[in-house]
């Protein structure tokens, strides 16, 4: 398979990734090292450019002072790239858009029109909405990544949102087999769906050589933003069962978010104040230190694309108990590298936590070592880099 020289990839993201967003930065770096030119497109109103990529921002049509300049700029962009504009307009009309909406759509997508790209890759399914014809209009191939929320939650609110997208010629990237099956259920051809799992920095996430003293109080941890999809209320209910059985434990929740009020009240109502800590959002180094001091990692999500935090915990040698939401049962192999519990069932989760606590050291070590080994070989950045290189090599 030969790699076309000077392939230009347009990556469409909601925000320009900042320093801490390792996934997109490592992907960009990997592509650049493999000879791809990466151009970032974003509709963020915060116009921070990326240090190593050309960056292009969508016009901002929100009502404000300066709106007229954005409209003028978009019109000029369309006129300067009249061929692509006409093609986009025609494709929109063929899709049944009214004349007025077709023109609007050209203006919304005007920032793409001047770019000659090999691939136009939408980083989330939702980013491709209203831009379904742009790749064809500019003569690029179209790729779309689905990461979880966009495939499972967004369509619950807007059930027909992807009808147009799924009628187009697209190469899909998903994080798990489960997500691939979901796309197949939407009648997407299996050949066009490629699984590339997330990866982590295995050099950074590895435990220190010196073994820790065993904890007298079992230390549980979870890392992630405080969002309902993380299933933390169910998790706390499971811990309330442990507490009733007088099992000594402490649960640290790392992350912040809109659900904090609800979770704090749950901790209070479930009488877990002495057993639960909200650590807030903390830097990577501190997360690593915390993982090092902990025994068990819990990810009892309701919906989860794949979850890097679970990979990091496995790499650090924690025993992981996760829900069966979407990609999690591929992230952790039940009874091999951790345990998978049916979602939305705190009783079953508590039962599994107790069983895991009761395992002997040999059984625990076996699972721990399996998980560390699997993450190292299956979810490293080098493997992911090769897979993305292949993805763009047609």
């Amino acid at each position, binding site marked *: 398979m030969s790699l076309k020289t000077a392939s230009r990839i347009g990556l469409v993201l909601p925000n320009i990734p900042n320093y801490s967003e390792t996934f997109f930065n490592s992907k960009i770096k990997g592509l650049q090292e493999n000879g791809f030119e990466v151009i970032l497109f974003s509709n963020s109103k915060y116009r921070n450019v990326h240090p190593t990529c050309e960056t292009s921002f969508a016009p901002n049509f929100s009502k404000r002072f300066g709106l007229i300049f954005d409209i003028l700029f978009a019109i000029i962009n369309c006129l300067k790239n009249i061929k692509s504009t006409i093609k986009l307009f025609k494709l929109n009309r063929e899709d049944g858009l009214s004349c007025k909406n077709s023109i609007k759509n050209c203006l919304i997508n005007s920032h793409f029109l001047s770019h000659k790209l090999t691939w136009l890759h939408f980083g989330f399914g939702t980013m491709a909405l209203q831009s379904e014809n742009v790749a064809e209009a500019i003569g690029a191939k179209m790729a779309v990544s689905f990461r979880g929320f966009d495939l*499972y939650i967004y369509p*619950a*609110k807007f059930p027909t949102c992807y009808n147009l997208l799924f009628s187009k010629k697209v190469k899909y990237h998903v994080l798990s087999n489960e997500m691939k099956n979901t796309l197949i259920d939407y009648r997407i051809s299996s050949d066009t769906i490629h699984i590339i799992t997330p990866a982590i920095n295995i050099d950074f996430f590895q435990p220190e050589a010196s073994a820790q003293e065993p904890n007298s109080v079992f230390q549980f941890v979870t890392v992630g933003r405080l969002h309902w*999809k993380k299933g933390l209320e169910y998790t706390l209910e499971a811990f309330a069962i442990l507490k009733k059985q007088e099992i000594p434990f402490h649960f640290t929740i790392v992350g912040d978010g809109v659900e*904090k*009020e*609800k979770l704090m*009240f*749950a901790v209070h109502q479930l009488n877990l104040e002495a057993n639960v800590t909200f650590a807030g959002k903390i830097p990577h180094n501190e997360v690593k230190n915390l993982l090092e001091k902990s025994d068990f990692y819990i990810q009892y999500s309701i919906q989860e694309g794949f979850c890097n935090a679970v990979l990091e915990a496995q790499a650090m040698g924690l025993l992981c108990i996760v829900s069966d939401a979407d990609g999690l049962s591929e992230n952790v192999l039940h009874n091999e590298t951790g345990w998978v519990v049916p979602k939305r069932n705190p009783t079953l989760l508590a039962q599994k936590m107790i069983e895991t606590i009761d395992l002997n050291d040999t059984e625990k070590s076996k699972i721990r070592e399996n998980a560390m080994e699997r993450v190292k070989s299956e979810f490293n950045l080098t493997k992911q880099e090769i897979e993305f290189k292949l993805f763009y090599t047609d």
Partner: protein
Amino acid sequence: MRKFKIAIYCGEIPPPTFIDRLINGLAEKGNKLILVGKLTRKVSYKSNHVKIIGYSGKISKTFILLYYSVLLSLFQNKEKKKLKNWMELNSKYNNISKIRYYPILYNRPDVFHLQWIKGIEDWVWVREFDIKLIVSLRGAHINYTPICEPKYAEIYKRYFPLVDGFHGVSKAIMQEATKYNSTLEKSKVVYSGLNTKKMSFNLTKKSVEHLQILSVGRNHWKKGYRYALDCMRILKDRNVKFTYTIVGVDEDEELLFQRKQLDLLKEVFFVPKLGFNDVIEKMKKANMLLLPSLEEGIANVVLEAMAIGTVVVSSDCGGMKEVIKHNENGFLVPVRNSKDMAQAILDASQLSESESSKMLLSARDQIEKQHYEKNMIHGILTLYKHSYEFKNS
């Protein structure tokens, strides 16, 4: 009983239905009412004893500010200066505060009744002007705000000793408030009141072939709808035929996703907020009203269902057990427990005609005895009177 001049403050005008009932009832008894707040829509009261000082935009705000500034300067300049000192000391000397404070100061009510205690810090100044400060202890503001936002626990502890009277919507909430230095001596439970004469009671047995389950309430985590949907999945697994409607919830992402994930698209429906009469109509048609809340003072919607003859299945939160006696006038289940909720729904649906009638009659009786509107008005007036005497004793 003595007639009072009462300022009611709840931020917005018109206030919620249960506060409106209080306003109308107090006005009917010949008390003078002043309502200050942001006007969200046009409102009028039958009684000419209710004076509305509302603002909705820059013009009305400017008018109120100028009007009351001039009146205070002309007739109560000393008091105006005293209030200015307090405002400056407390970093509140700004136009927004003036718009809220000046009409109260000028009208000088006997009682200032604050409906939502989160704002207590802004209103303790009224005591400096011989206005009695009465606060209502309602649901969220006392049950979880100080837990989730510890700064409010500190504010309450600091200012509750200055309050002249506490109105608790339940015994449970009154007890909860003592954690923040409220005193039971100054507190009185006054249950929410309904005009039961206007709410027709119907004992007709409804078909249970296909259960109609209803919840009513705003879209907020404290309403516990997540547990209700888990409960519906349990019912579906047990092959129960049902429709579950939540009124007050429309486009909530979490609930829409949960409904889809649990395969309840044909059973569960979300309906945006409806007016009082439409809610009552829906309630009449339902086999039961479900209250899956995690926290409540006492939910008015439960009182309404009990008044009209709809069986209630409620979580045992806040003051709900002060209204519902399990298996006697309704069903009470532990909070955060979908399994018990499902079992209670099944039990409710399997009541014989005589058991159902007995339960509904008992429910209606409970509402008539404990939540009669006139009792509410009398209770509130007693609290005002008592706090007035307490202050002067």
